[in-house]
């Protein structure tokens, strides 16, 4: 079993694997997102309360989930790289950060657009959106710390440490924001939670979620090749790869 793990640590293998996997991920992502869009927009029945506005969930929920998933995988990849000194972990963390940040922005925009019909304003400090906003600040902190160092290997390790500290704080932030929201606004305001959904509404959501995950995999593989090249520029295998 360990050869599989050992292979993951060798840059040429990661570089080649990323190149091979990217198109597969992208193709599967296109299919699942396509199906999710058609099924969600056309066939899923409108919500009895929110009418067709609820269809925004097919973009908001997957992107909110992806923003957290990407941050967790960034922090774990960084932790593995920091503890076991595997350079590829830093490459995965560096590749994962911008994707996660873009999904966080998407979740925030779709969340506030969805909130407009419900609350009458684009921003009403909904606990989930507030946590999402703080998550965006964590992303910006990690990405700017990584690029602030001239020596990329130190930037990687600093960003990995901040990623771990951030990951430990995400649940604390989420809980304290929820506590703060319930303190001031009480639970009356309809929060952005996922309403209980019948199958016809749920299937498109699951396929959109799967589609976004596959898309994340695809873009991660594409970015990873760039990150590996940046870190292994002097290595012999890069010269062969470039020449071919």
């Amino acid at each position, binding site marked *: 079993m360990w050869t599989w793990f050992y292979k993951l640590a060798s840059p040429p293998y990661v570089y080649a694997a990323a190149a091979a996997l990217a198109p597969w991920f992208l193709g599967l992502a296109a299919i699942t997102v396509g199906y999710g869009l058609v099924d969600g927009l056309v066939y899923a029945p409108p919500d009895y309360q929110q009418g067709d506005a609820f269809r925004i969930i097919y973009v908001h929920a997957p992107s909110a989930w992806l923003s957290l998933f990407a941050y967790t995988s960034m922090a774990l990849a960084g932790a593995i790289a920091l503890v076991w000194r595997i350079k590829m972990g830093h490459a995965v963390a560096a590749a994962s950060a911008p994707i996660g940040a873009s999904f966080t922005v998407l979740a925030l925009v779709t969340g506030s657009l969805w909130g407009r019909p419900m609350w009458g304003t684009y921003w009403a400090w909904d606990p989930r959106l507030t946590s999402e906003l703080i998550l965006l600040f964590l992303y910006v902190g990690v990405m700017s710390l990584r690029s602030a160092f*001239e*020596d*990329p*290997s130190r930037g990687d390790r600093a960003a990995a440490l901040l990623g771990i500290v951030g990951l430990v704080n995400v649940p604390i932030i989420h809980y304290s924001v929820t506590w703060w929201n319930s303190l001031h606004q009480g639970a009356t305001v309809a929060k952005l939670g996922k309403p209980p959904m019948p199958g016809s509404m749920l299937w498109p959501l699951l396929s959109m979620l799967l589609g976004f995950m596959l898309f994340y995999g695809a873009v991660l593989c594409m970015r990873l090749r760039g990150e590996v090249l940046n870190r292994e*520029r*002097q290595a012999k295998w890069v010269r062969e790869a470039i020449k071919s």
Partner: protein
Amino acid sequence: MNMAADGLSVEKVHVWRGDRHVLRGVSLSLGPRQLLHVSGPNGTGKTTLLRVVCGLLRPEQGQVSWRGHSISSARSEYQATLAYASHEPALKGDLTALENLRFAVGLKRRVTADELRSALQRTGVAACADLPARVLSAGQRRRVAMARVLAMSASLWLLDEPFTNLDAAGSDVMSSLLQSHVAGGGSALVVAHHELTVECDMRRMELA
């Protein structure tokens, strides 16, 4: 090599700083009663080598071991036995020379003010023991840093350009301190550009 058994040994250390391959497979060994003079043009990694040896910088490849054990396994025990003098004299401007020594040496071993004053005496700066370090000249600061290395009574000295800013008298004091340290069973790794006039078992290493 039995020499490495009870001294410092560095095997094939590689260090990259960004794209620059600063240390390319450097190896050395340093036993008791030995002095290693490391020299070479600027930017060839002399200071980086010192930082690797004292355990501040972990090399990408290669091994540093002290008395047979790798320093990464027992880092603070190893660092307790060494005294490192960096390129700057590393003194707090607001503290007096004596206070600087008390706080620096006091973390390594219990030491009395008299011992510190005698160390300052031996490096010729006893007069400015109670002056704040910021009013001292560069040469005096270097002598205070020398007194700190002396007062630590460490068995391994790692000195980065110890002779900078020293006048003739200062260089003689430095050379005699090095000689008595090495004669007394200690070992020293000195980075310096010019020739060292220390009568002891001295080897030279050129970093290209």
